[in-house]
């Protein structure tokens, strides 16, 4: 037994000692499964650089990690996270003279331009292009089973309240509150009044019952044929992918408005900028952008690629509902607002905690009984020991 342990020890030691970094390395911090690995491999070959990919599954985690001092050369967070990173001076500004394969003035897909302009204008305007190079963009909408859901029921976000269907919400505070705020008529998802916020909370409490589900990644499995849910809240890119795998699915964005978003390349402080710009240029070339969007399924920022895949013969010809993100006046981009985020996070957990109880008001009987029982037990046993001590004196 000892010998075996010793052998394992030596083996692991040897393997770990043998590891050493070869050549220049590009550390890419990205969402999981958000890039075509073949492209990465091609880049590694062409440039003689090793790409080390680290994954994150939420913007919050990404920000925390970058703040904590973990070193990355490139990261791909979302709009509001980019805003926060810029505000906290954690990323460098983009030197657009170094971007050769792409000109933001002319080459951006129209919808994306609208989004970027919207964020850049106004009192608290923030020009994302100062700090980021767009990577993918899209919106959030409703993915539904065309065979099951009647067309007249496609009214808007309130479809999620339709108990005739099997519903799933997205398990994230932002992607739960946005439909709620839009459905209850809030003016802005970034600055809801207390009344608007509370209305959204009620809307969510009504919608989330023990019969509805909350999901994130399960969507990829659940909406394949046969789809487990009739209606789910979904990101446009995921919808693209699922619709190509399951012909029964359709996607629509409610007129009340939705959240439009853009993810972009940012350069954290102390990034190896030469390698970073090489990679950005590489990914934004026509062929590579085309390959990436076809693999991942999200809308590409390059206008020419965008139009080509939507044209006849293009890969996303039949998926314009989810790929060609239409922006209307009610669509908004999330902005950096940490107080609101904290509020939404807590409330969302409360709503989830309420979910199984289906609208029972206040503390249920079970709760009250438990509190009484515990209180009585502890007090009585404490009382007994005090009495005992008194007796023995």
């Amino acid at each position, binding site marked *: 037994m000892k010998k075996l342990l010793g052998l394992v020890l030596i083996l692991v030691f040897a393997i770990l000692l043998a590891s050493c970094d070869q050549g220049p390395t590009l550390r890419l911090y990205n969402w999981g499964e958000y890039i075509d690995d073949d492209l990465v491999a091609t880049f590694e070959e062409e440039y003689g650089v090793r790409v080390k990919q680290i994954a994150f599954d939420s913007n919050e985690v990404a920000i925390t990690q970058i703040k904590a001092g973990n070193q990355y050369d490139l990261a791909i967070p979302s709009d509001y996270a980019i805003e926060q990173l810029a505000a906290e001076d954690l990323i460098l500004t983009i030197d657009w003279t170094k971007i050769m394969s792409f000109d933001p003035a002319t080459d951006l897909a129209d919808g994306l331009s609208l989004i970027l302009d919207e964020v850049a204008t106004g009192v608290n305007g923030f020009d994302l292009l100062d700090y980021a190079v767009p990577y993918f963009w899209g919106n959030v909408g409703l993915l539904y089973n065309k065979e099951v859901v009647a067309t007249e029921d496609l009214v808007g976000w309130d479809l999620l309240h339709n108990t005739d269907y099997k519903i799933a919400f997205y398990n994230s505070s932002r992607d739960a509150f946005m439909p709620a705020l839009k459905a209850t008529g809030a003016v802005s998802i970034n600055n809801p009044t207390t009344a608007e916020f509370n209305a959204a909370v009620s809307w969510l409490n009504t919608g989330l019952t023990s019969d509805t*589900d909350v999901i994130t990644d399960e969507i990829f499995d659940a909406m394949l044929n046969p789809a487990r849910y009739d209606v789910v809240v979904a990101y446009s890119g995921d919808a693209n992918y699922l619709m190509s795998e399951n012909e029964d699915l359709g996607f629509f964005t409610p007129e009340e408005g939705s959240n439009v978003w853009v993810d972009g390349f940012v350069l954290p402080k102390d990034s190896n900028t030469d390698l970073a710009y090489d990679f950005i240029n590489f990914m934004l070339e026509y062929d590579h952008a085309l390959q990436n969007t076809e693999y991942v399924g999200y809308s590409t920022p390059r206008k020419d690629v965008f139009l080509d895949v939507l044209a006849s013969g293009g890969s996303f010809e039949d998926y314009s509902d989810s790929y060609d993100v239409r922006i209307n006046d009610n669509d908004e981009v999330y902005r950096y607002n940490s107080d609101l985020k904290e509020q939404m996070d807590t409330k969302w*957990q409360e709503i989830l*905690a309420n979910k*199984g109880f289906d609208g029972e008001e206040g*503390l249920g009987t*079970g*709760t009250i009984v438990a509190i009484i029982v515990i209180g009585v037990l502890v007090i009585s046993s404490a009382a007994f020991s005090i009495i005992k001590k008194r007796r023995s004196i």
Partner: protein
Amino acid sequence: MQNIEIKARSKPKKKFEFYLGIPYYAVLITLVVIPIFLMIVSSFQFDNQSGIYPISFTLNHYLDFLRATSFVRAMTSSLWIAAATTVVALIIGYPLAYILTRMKPKSQITFLLLINAPMWINMLLRVRALEQIIRMFFPFLIDSFAGVVLGLVYVYLPFMVLPIFAVLSKIDPNLLESSADLGANKFKTITKVVIPLSLSGVLSGILMVFLPAATTIIIPQYLAPSQNIYMIGTLIEKSVINSGRISYASAVAIILSLVILGIVYYIKKLDKYKGVNSNEKETH
């Protein structure tokens, strides 16, 4: 004369052996004691504060939690789930331990090993395995109270069986014989002799099942993924991982600890038969 010599020589040994403990105490203090104090301090601070300074004070986290009826309900429902788990584990575990004691020593070892073995397997693997079986044969149990209890029993059953077995096997068979000799029937023997003598093992088992069951995060996430069974562990997990609100999580953790301490205190008070067993030495 000789005694003094020996004492003199063992003094440096005493000092040496004392110094041996220093690294351990260093680890104990920095990684066990201090974190607890820090956690208590942190629960009174605002979130997103880096470091302990400046020291702010707020009761917001505690108030927010206690005012949120859903969270208070989550805590008590976790306690109910844990209680149900403990009862089921007792119902299965006590007879199981009893049957084990009546076996031949060789079979005892075999069966003990078989019951013990799953404990060495990664808990996530076991829960996932159970989830698969449930989805295949009993899909109605997913997202239900019963399903979560079943999962918890599955994982923590050995923790109930082993202490009870340990205590039952120490019962002097002569006691059972003399009880029979004094005229008690089997039922009376069991209730008046066996159960009281095994009480400390039972209470030990209860604690070892109740505590982890009440604070689990894994089982509800695997067996109730639609969040219909929302447990207190889930809240702490989401606060830490998803929102990074460590001070809030600390406050919830402390409230949870206080409740659990109360329950543990009560259960320890029940243990009036500690050390009664003639074979058992009271060890600290």
